[in-house]
């Protein structure tokens, strides 16, 4: 059993014509992940929402470093939320929140 789990933080930006709540984004990311990788994959990712600013449509999620590409693919596969077209871009990935905030100027 590993003593320390390495994490990755991903900065997101939601492109949409409507304002989208944190809950909607969380649901969309989880649904996309479950559709692509199933419950077994989801259990390995430790996916957590750190923050979401609905005014700026930007947020940060955390996951295990081994599942970054899976999370990236899931987020990229989201095409609609509440029946409206959206695109979620990943602005940057980093090992610490501080470095991520410096990198993408959130």
């Amino acid at each position, binding site marked *: 059993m590993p003593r320390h789990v390495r994490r990755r933080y991903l900065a997101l930006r939601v*492109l949409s014509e409507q304002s989208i709540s944190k809950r909607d984004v969380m649901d969309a990311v989880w649904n996309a992940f479950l559709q692509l990788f199933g419950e077994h994959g989801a259990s390995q990712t430790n996916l957590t929402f750190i923050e979401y600013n609905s005014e700026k449509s930007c947020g940060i999620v955390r996951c295990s470093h081994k599942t970054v*590409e899976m999370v990236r*693919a899931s*987020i990229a*596969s989201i*095409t609609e939320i509440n029946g409206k*077209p959206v*695109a979620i*871009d*990943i602005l940057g990935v980093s090992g610490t929140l501080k470095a991520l905030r410096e990198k993408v100027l959130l």
Partner: protein
Amino acid sequence: MRRFADLHLQPSVKDSDQLNHMVSRASELGYRLVGITLPPNITQEKIRQLQDICKDAGIDLVTRVDLTSKTPNQLLRELRHFRRKFETISVVCTSKAVARQAAKDRRVDLLSFPATSSRRRFFDYAEAELASNALSSLEVDMAPLLSLKSFSRIQLLSSLRKEVAIAKKFGVPVVISSGATNVYLMRGPYEYAALASLFDMAVSFALRALSETPLNIVKRNREKLSPNFIAPGIRIVRRKRNCPDT
């Protein structure tokens, strides 16, 4: 730093707002070269307008035409007509005969197959062998992967996994393009590389399919379309007075 290219944007050329949005989003996502599918009868003036729009966004425009010929003879006629007019030619293979003709013709750059019907995806061993001799590449559009749901997406992933494995075995270059018709279907190159891992394409191979491979196709074609080109490996280096008498 890698230069990324998306060779397949499909905006409506008449809708300049949509075109501007898509080009600026491509620039924002980190692409430095975009291919826009144009109608075969487009005028040079319209192409210059598009080039200006792309130049303003800091992007290089590649003109592209998608041929949807029904028979091999029609494909040959269209290739003869359009090859010197467009920088990239893609053939949407809707029948096996057209797919075979397109794969063995050196004027074809990209082989693309309908995403919604797995029966009409003709990229098998024979097709790959012909394509590997003729330098044509397999194009994988990502927009259908995003828009299709449940069973259709499963079928598409399964077909793509098989095709990419065959292409790798025969050394056929693979190009990943967006195939986007609007800004919401456009994603960044690293997102496409992550999505490509769904059909067992390694991230490094996918990134090559988004950068070096499409850039090489464009470079090769621009060289061929240049007035100094004579034949592969032969080009004019000097003219008139600069050329010494022999």
